[in-house]
């Protein structure tokens, strides 16, 4: 695709040349595409910033809401699990820490997904008028979700300290795991961004999917609490290893190698499948919106 000279045009001898040719196997030439993607990264940052601003999350109360909302939800789930799981010893402060840590991370993924699903259809006019790597739109959504996620980590940190969960070097594991979660979220966001173009009711169907996905993920329970007969099914969930490793790292354990390997595989699969699917459909966006 087009490689725009983003730099200032100083003389006419270096004017950029764009060549548009049919796509091979439905995909644009990947290397120039990725180069164009990188050269326009500013767009993704600006897009996520303005999205946050339009949702008023740049104000003090907006930030407070960003933190309060998942916190309240966490408390509700904590009480719920307490009532349902009477007598099974889930009720310690360290469980609350686990619940909040996993819930906030889950919310990051689910916000990426729901924002990503809207990204292409919302950018309709821009897509109709300007040639640019469309992949920037779902990427901007993930950046938005990431910026909404980071303030909740402050709340988690407070609960972590108060609950007396150990603080050590294993916490550093959260960084690579967060990278894996981000890559995974981006891949799935790209997938849903395309689906939304073809099925506009996807966004009303998505909340149910996200709710079920939450219950299937090790958020309201620990990975080691899953009954053996369900383990095979539940461990097929990509978020099972990813959130499992995340919770282990937060709880001061070394994340299990199986989780890390599986999580990496899921993240890689999501970004490759989601990305290629997006690229293969990208040309059609201009006539489908």
């Amino acid at each position, binding site marked *: *695709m*087009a490689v*725009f*000279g*983003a*730099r*200032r*045009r100083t003389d006419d001898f270096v*004017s*950029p*040349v*764009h*060549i*548009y*040719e*049919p*796509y091979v196997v439905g995909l*644009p030439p990947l290397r*120039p595409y990725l180069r*164009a993607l990188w*050269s*326009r990264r*500013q*767009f993704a940052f*600006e*897009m996520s910033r*303005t999205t946050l*601003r*339009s949702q008023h999350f740049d104000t003090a109360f907006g930030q407070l809401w960003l933190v309060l909302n998942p916190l309240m939800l966490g408390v509700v789930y904590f009480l719920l699990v307490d009532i349902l799981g009477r007598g099974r010893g889930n009720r310690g402060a360290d469980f609350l820490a686990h619940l909040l840590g996993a819930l906030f991370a889950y919310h990051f993924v689910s916000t990426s997904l729901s924002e990503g699903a809207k990204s292409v259809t*919302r*950018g*309709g*006019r*821009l*897509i*109709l*008028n*300007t*040639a*640019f790597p469309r992949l*920037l739109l779902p990427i901007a959504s993930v950046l938005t979700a990431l910026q909404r996620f980071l303030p909740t980590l402050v709340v988690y940190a407070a609960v972590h300290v108060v609950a007396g969960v150990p603080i050590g070097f294993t916490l550093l594991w959260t960084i690579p795991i967060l990278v894996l979660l981000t890559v995974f979220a981006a891949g799935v966001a790209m997938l849903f961004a395309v689906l939304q173009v*073809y*099925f*506009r*009711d*996807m966004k009303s*169907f998505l909340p149910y999917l996200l709710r079920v996905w939450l219950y299937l993920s090790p958020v309201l329970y620990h990975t080691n609490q899953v009954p053996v007969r369900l383990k095979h099914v539940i461990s097929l969930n990509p978020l099972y290893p990813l959130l499992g490793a995340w919770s282990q790292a937060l709880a001061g354990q070394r994340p299990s190698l199986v989780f890390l390997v599986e999580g990496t595989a899921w993240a890689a699969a999501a970004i490759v499948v989601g990305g290629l699917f997006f690229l293969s459909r990208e*040309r*059609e966006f*201009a*006539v*489908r919106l």
Partner: protein
Amino acid sequence: MSSLSASDGTGAGAGAGAVDVAVKVQRVSVRYRTSYEKKPTFKTALLRLGRRQRLVREIEALKGVSFEVTHGTVLGIVGANGAGKSTLVRTVAGILPPTEGRVEVHGRVSTLLALGIGFNRELSGRENVVLGGLAAGLGRDEIEERYQEISEFAELEDVMELPMSTYSSGMYSRLGFSVAVHMDPDILMIDEALATGDARFKKKSFEKMKQLCGEARTILLVSHALGSIQELCTEAVWIHAGELKLQDDPETVVAAYTRFLGIGDTDTALEDV
């Protein structure tokens, strides 16, 4: 068709012979599939399953179109509704890549197609301008440089910080036009968007167009206002049913086109709309 292509298929074809070619369209065909439904949903897709109804049709918008535009040409594109004019401009702009053939564009492109700017109504005019510019590949400093000029020309300085949902349709198109012409493009593509704002602004945008034409820019102008085509353009093409029917000077093309339409040189056809 003079085939000058020095380096086919290998990226930057800045061959010595092609220095003053701005746009080169070679045997371009564009096909795409689109849905009859305005808003396709999963629900209707499911309900339709039993009925074997196909709501997707393939459209052959362009069929083997070839032409060249040299730098400094103002090319008018005429044709009936649905002839493929907009598809042609979109293809040259890189928005809808061709199914067959090859398009070569030398220079920075700015587009003002049917809908123009203001893609997100919740965002302010300023944010839309910045995002549009960044998407088009401009740097922040370049947008900042032009921003003042853009809002002044559109006469919207007071409302640039307001969400675009508060704008009137005239304000929308004024801003769109202003952004497109101030991007300092080598090649400007305008699709039926000269009808911007009230009579005064229309005159102003027409003057601006004339000025740009005088600055030896390359302009591709799609319009049904045959009068504007004759006045502004140095060359014209007539697209009919996805094929290039004629490429000549504007008078000849407009004359042939109006003869084809069977309307003659009436005032309505030439009117600046």
